[in-house]
């Protein structure tokens, strides 16, 4: 994902802003891994293979394939 996607993402639970942590970037500066962390509730949403997974925790697969 491009960092600019962050501008239009928020926490699905409380709709507060997300902060990027532990970002892994490729040569083209695309974010391929890391976590998006809610600045309010602290919930962490993983970025997997460059795609942010913003499913609420009760819907997320426990172990990503």
């Amino acid at each position, binding site marked *: 994902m491009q960092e600019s*996607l962050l501008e239009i993402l*928020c926490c699905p639970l409380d*709709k507060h802003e997300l902060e990027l942590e532990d970002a892994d970037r490729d040569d083209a500066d695309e974010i391929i891994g890391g976590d998006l962390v809610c600045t309010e509730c602290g919930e962490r949403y993983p970025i997997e293979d460059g*795609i*942010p997974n*913003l499913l*609420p925790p009760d*819907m997320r*697969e426990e172990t990503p394939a």
Partner: protein
Amino acid sequence: MLFSSQVSVVTNDADRKRDVATSFGNATDGYRDGAVLKEGADLERLVDWTEGATRALDVATGAGHVAGAVAERNVPRVVAADLSPEMVTTATADYGGLEGAVVDAERLPFPAGRFDAVTCRFAAHHFPDPEAFLAEVERVLATGGVFAFEDLAAPADPELASYVNRIERLRDPGHVETASPAQWRDWLEAAGLTVDAVRETSRRLEVDTWLDRMDVPADRRREIRSLLSNAPAALEDAFDFRYADDGERLESYRTGVVLFRARA
């Protein structure tokens, strides 16, 4: 009665949605190649309705056909969102210029007013809580933004509707409920969206192809075939059943489809 199967317990919803994500993850190839979903005047119409948008969201994008078509119409930013990570990967790999996100349609991870177009095509019958979905659509749309929506439509007669839904659920365990156009209109208006165009149409489904697309196992195929053979005459008429030359085997039928354009 029609909507009695809707589940309200959050964990049940979450389990059901996980099942949907899994079954669609497995069916990715069938969805990517399905001409029924990739082509059609209805797809064009839906995309026409997003004309002039600057930032669009396609909810339950599947293989990305709608999101891709919207991006091709010069909408500069298009987010392709789906419950299944596999689907989002497929969509963003197959169509250039899309941004992908894995989301729950009923709890969207976007701030209020961020989009001027939201699309959703042939997916809402998988949503356990369509009203929660529409409330989220209304929230993420800017004032005046357009919601371009298409889904299967159930017959107005509740008995026929429940018969159809029974068949659909056998074919696809992730199927929740196909609603009637009147029900959708009520829900849209209740969510604060103003309907400004409605199209009721239908599409002919070849029964075998339709079952192959979801990889339906043999026992459930037999049950579906039996329900179709014993369908009430009113359904046979409403859905324009067409049989093979022997007059026995149902080859295809027409299922209702509805498109809405609504504004926030």
